[in-house]
């Protein structure tokens, strides 16, 4: 019974959102505003239930772990943001969280997104067992990455055989990449629609298995 009511409510809201395709209307607006409140309210519950309560409030106030007091104070300093005269105090928790996070990010990002990526561009063009399209592919990876990087390099004018030709090849590579992304974007959006149609036809109307 509970599930049945739920599915009907869900179907109502699904159709209410689709009604927007015809014309904007109050039901759509109702739904739009309801999600804002629900999602933040939902987050509040879990941040309290699974983070603040078991990791801070319970150990501090029930088990008396006084060492957690600075954590509580730092956390509460966020609230000073709402009071203009003392809002500068909210910079302290941000500074503590932010500074070290930046330091932690630097070497790891250097490894994951720069060094290993650069390394993976220096690849053999031919190895035994490679078909012609693999050889062509390896060449495209090496030359394509380099030229696309040249295209994004704006400190030098795109002139001459290196920067000029490089950036001209680079833009073609980028266009193909954007084409692939467009194809996938279409696919993704359709998948989301398929998901909702599946819900309506299967869970709500039971017309398909």
């Amino acid at each position, binding site marked *: 019974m509970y599930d049945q009511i739920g599915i009907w409510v869900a179907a109502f809201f699904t159709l209410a959102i689709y009604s927007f395709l015809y014309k904007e209307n109050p039901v759509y607006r109702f739904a739009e505003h309801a999600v804002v409140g629900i999602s933040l309210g939902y987050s509040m519950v879990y941040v309290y239930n699974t*983070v603040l309560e078991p990791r801070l409030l319970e150990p501090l106030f029930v088990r008396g772990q006084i060492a957690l007091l600075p954590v509580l104070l730092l956390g509460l300093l966020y609230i000073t943001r709402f009071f203009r005269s003392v809002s500068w105090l909210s910079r302290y928790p941000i500074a503590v969280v932010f500074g070290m996070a930046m330091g932690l990010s630097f070497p790891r990002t250097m490894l994951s997104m720069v060094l290993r990526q650069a390394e993976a561009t220096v690849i053999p063009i031919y190895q035994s067992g490679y078909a012609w399209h693999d050889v062509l592919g390896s060449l495209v990876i090496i030359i394509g990455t380099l030229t696309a990087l040249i295209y994004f390099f704006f400190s030098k004018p795109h002139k001459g055989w290196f920067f000029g030709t490089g950036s001209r090849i680079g833009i073609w590579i980028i266009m193909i990449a954007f084409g692939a992304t467009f194809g996938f974007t279409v696919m993704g959006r359709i998948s989301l629609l398929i*998901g909702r149609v599946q819900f309506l036809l299967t869970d709500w109307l039971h017309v398909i298995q």
Partner: protein
Amino acid sequence: MTIWDRLFNIDRRWIFLLMGVVTVVPFFFKMGLPVITTEEVEGIYNHVDSLDHDNAVMIGFDYQPGTMAENQPMSEAVMRHCFARKIPVFITAFWPLGNGLAEQAITTLTDPAKPGTFQRVRYNEWREYDYGDEELPDRVTHAELVELWERDHELREDAMGWVFEGVDYVLLGYAPLFHIVLLGMGRSITSQYPSDLYGNPTEDMPIVKRNKSAREVDMGLTVSGSSTVLSWLTYARESYGMPIAFGVTAVSATDYLVYIQSGQILGQMGGLRGAAEYEVMLERDDYAVEMGRAFMGMDVQSIVHVLIVILVVLGNIAYFAGGYHRKGRRLKAGR
């Protein structure tokens, strides 16, 4: 007004209607076109298939309901694979809304109304059960617990096996600043999650006792609709070498293939197609009795792609035939 003008000035709601009809109708005519698997998805599948109860997998529900049509089948497929192979699963979430999606995935995989699902036993249920003379081992394994449990309980006939909360999976859920949480789990899981989503202490759970930190986890799958996947790469792989796999929406799938070629990730499921490939392999190896929703959607996906291509071609024919490409001939904006 030429025919081309009229075509371009058509109320766009007719296109919406056409799109709606083309998405609904193919559901009633199953074609069951085969989905061929690619090495991007096989990389994940084969890795999971090489693991067992002595290993562990972490699945991040790092998406929100907006992209669940694409992401949920991926999480469910890999979780099903893990449950079937008795691989312990840690479940986390990058956003609070991921908690509910993770709960939903577990509920779907343990739904008694569906054949080929698992029979779930909640943590308190088996923990507080009276086993008579037998002592419950501290780090009880799945096989040991099944032996004890089946003395008084019978597995549902059409079920694929038992799933014990706290042994086979634990729902850790969301914690703020998740990339730091990933780093912290490299030291110990209990430091980041003293309790699970339901308030059960994690330090008592056999799954946590057997895998104390994320360093002991043999694969981290991040399923996401945004760039949060990179956090796993940067903070889990580069910090303590956790093998990573991506499950991403189609929109971002083309961006992350670079990490497969560089060998930084095991593989990637991209969009509904990626999930469908995983479902095909699950069914092939008898981990599932029927195809999942992603595969079911692929027929429709095919037809709608054809429609989109037709619309692009038709739009271009009209554009050139109507002479809109010439200077001075402007296209009026349609509704």
